C-alpha cells in the first residue's frame, strides 16, 4: 500500500490537509440544504401537485385520448431519433478514434455544436429549411411530405438537440482503447463486420448504453426545439412536454403535473441506471463527464 493510500485512510480530522471540523460541517450543511431547495424540492413538487386530488384523478388524467396520443408520439420520436443518433455517434467515434486524418478537431467541434445552440434557434432553423414557404419545404409539402408541423420535423429537431450525446461518450473511451484488438482480429482473419461485432461493440457496450441513456432522456424531454417545429396540433404533433405546456396554460394543473410526473419518473429511472453504470463499470466509461 502506498503512503498516500495510507494517509487517505487516516481520520480526516488528523490530516494536515483537511479543513477544521466546523468548516466541513458548515459546508456540507449549506451545500446539501441548497441542493435540496433548488433541485430536490422541484422534483417533490411535481409529484405532490399531481397527487393533490388523489391518485385516481392523476391516473385518469393520463388516460384520455390526447394524453395517450402525446405519450405515443414521444415514444415514437425517441424510438426513431435515438437509434439514428446512436448509429451516427458510433460511426463518428469510429472515424475519429481509429484513423489518422486531418480535420478531426473541426469534426469534433461540429458534432458538439448543438450543445451551444439554443433549442428555439434550432427549431427556427428547421422551420426556415423545411417550412412551407421555403424552397425545399414548399416542394415537399406540394408532394404530400410535410416536414415542419409533422412527425419528421419533430424527429429532426430532436436529433439536432441530442446529436452529440453518443459520440461524446464514445470518443474518449475508444481513444483510450486504441486499435490493437481490432488489428489482431483482422490478422486472425475476421471480416470487418465480424471484427466490429465481436471486438469493438463488446468493448464499448457500457459507454454506448450510457450515451444512449442520456440521449434518450433528452429526446423524450425536449421542449424548445419541438415547440417551434411541431405547430402544437393537439393529438397530432403534441409530444409529452408540449402537452404539459398546453394543459398548464389551460389551468388543468393536475393533468399537467401528472404528465410531468411521468417524465419525472423517467428522469429518476435514467439517473438510477446512469449511477448504476458509473458504479459498476466506471473503468469502461469516459473518465471525465462533461455534458
Amino acid at each position, binding site marked *: 500500500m502506498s503512503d498516500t493510500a495510507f494517509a487517505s485512510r487516516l481520520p480526516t480530522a488528523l490530516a494536515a490537509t483537511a479543513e477544521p471540523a466546523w468548516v466541513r460541517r458548515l*459546508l456540507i450543511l449549506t451545500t446539501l440544504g441548497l441542493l435540496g431547495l433548488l433541485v430536490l*424540492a422541484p422534483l417533490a*413538487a411535481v409529484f405532490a401537485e399531481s397527487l393533490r386530488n388523489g391518485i385516481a384523478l392523476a391516473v385518469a388524467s393520463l388516460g384520455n385520448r390526447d394524453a395517450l396520443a402525446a405519450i405515443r408520439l414521444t415514444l415514437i420520436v425517441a424510438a426513431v431519433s435515438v437509434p439514428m443518433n446512436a448509429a451516427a455517434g458510433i460511426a463518428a467515434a469510429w472515424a475519429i478514434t481509429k484513423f489518422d486524418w486531418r480535420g478531426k478537431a473541426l469534426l469534433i467541434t461540429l458534432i458538439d455544436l448543438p450543445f451551444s445552440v*439554443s433549442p428555439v434557434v434550432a427549431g427556427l432553423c428547421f422551420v426556415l429549411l423545411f417550412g412551407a414557404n421555403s424552397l425545399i419545404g414548399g416542394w415537399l409539402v406540394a408532394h404530400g411530405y410535410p416536414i415542419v408541423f409533422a412527425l419528421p420535423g419533430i424527429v429532426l429537431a430532436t436529433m439536432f438537440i441530442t446529436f452529440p450525446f453518443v459520440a461524446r461518450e464514445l470518443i474518449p473511451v475508444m481513444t483510450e482503447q486504441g486499435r490493437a484488438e481490432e488489428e489482431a482480429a483482422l490478422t486472425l482473419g475476421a471480416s470487418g463486420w465480424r471484427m466490429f461485432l465481436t471486438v469493438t461493440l463488446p468493448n464499448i457496450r457500457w459507454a454506448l448504453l450510457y450515451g444512449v441513456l442520456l440521449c434518450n432522456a433528452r429526446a423524450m424531454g425536449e421542449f424548445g426545439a419541438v415547440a417551434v417545429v411541431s405547430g402544437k396540433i393537439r393529438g397530432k404533433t403534441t409530444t409529452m412536454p408540449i402537452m404539459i405546456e398546453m394543459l398548464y396554460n389551460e389551468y388543468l394543473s393536475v393533468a399537467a403535473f401528472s404528465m410531468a410526473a411521468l417524465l419525472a419518473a423517467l428522469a429518476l429511472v435514467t439517473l438510477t441506471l446512469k449511477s448504476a453504470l458509473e458504479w459498476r463499470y466506471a473503468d469502461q466509461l469516459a473518465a471525465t463527464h462533461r455534458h
Partner: protein
Amino acid sequence: MRPLALPSPLPGLGLAMGITVTTLSLVVLLPIGALLLRGAAIGPAEILALLGRDRVQAALILSFRAALVAAAFNLVFGLALAWVLARYRFPGRRLVDAAVDLPFALPTAVAGIALTALYAPNGAFGRLLEPLGIKVAYSEAGIWIALIFVGLPFVVRSVQPVIEEIDREVEEASATLGASRARTFLRVILPMLVPALLTGFALALARSVGEYGSVIFIAGNLPMATEIAPLLIVIRLEEFDYDGAVAIALAMLGISFALLLAINLVQIWSRRRMGAV
C-alpha cells in the same frame, strides 16, 4: 505536408465518414446554413435595425444578464458542492452525487412548471417569501432560479474530477511550510481549479442564455421586463415575422459561438499552463 489520411489496416473509414457527414449535414449543418442564408438575404443593415428595437434589446440583455447571474451563483455553489462531494465522506453521499445530475435528466418543461408551483405567491416557497416582500415567480428573480437549476451540474461536473485528482502531497507541502488551510486553498488549490471552473462557468452560461422551457413558465413574460430572447423568437414566429425571428436568432448564435470560442481558448491555455509545469 502531412497527407489527408494516413493508411490504416482497419476497414470502414469511408463508411463511417459517409454516415457521420451525411447525418451531421442533414441534422445540424443544413439547418444552421438555412438560418445564415436567410440572414444574408435580409442583409446586415436590416438585421442591425431589427436588433436595435427596444423590445429586442431588452430581451437579449435580460437573457444574457440572467444567465450571467445564474452562472456566477453556480460558479461558487458548484465549487462548494464539488468540493464536498470529492473530499468529504458522509451518509448519502452517493445519492447526493446522483442528484446533482437531476437537472440534466429532468425535462425543462417539467422543471419549469415545478419551480412555478413552488415560487408562485400561493406556492410552498412563495407563501413564505411574500410576507417578506420578495417576489420570485413572474419577476427576474424567477428567471435566475430557473437558470441556476438548469446550469447547476455544469460547474460541479467540470470541477469534481479535477479536485479528485489533486495530489495531496502539494497540500501537505504547503501545510508543512506553515500556510494556513485557507491560504493553502486560495494560493495552491484554487489556481489548479481555475481552468475547470472557467469551463464549467462558460458551459453553464452557454446553456442558460438559450434556455427556454424552464424559464417561460416562471418568468411572467412581460415585454421589456421579463421576456427572454428565445421567447421573443417564438413570438415573432407566431406573428409570421420571420425576419425579426432570424435577427434575434443570429444574435444568439453569435453569443453561442463567442462562448464556444472562449471555452476552447481556456482549454488551450490550461493545457499549455499545465504542460509547462
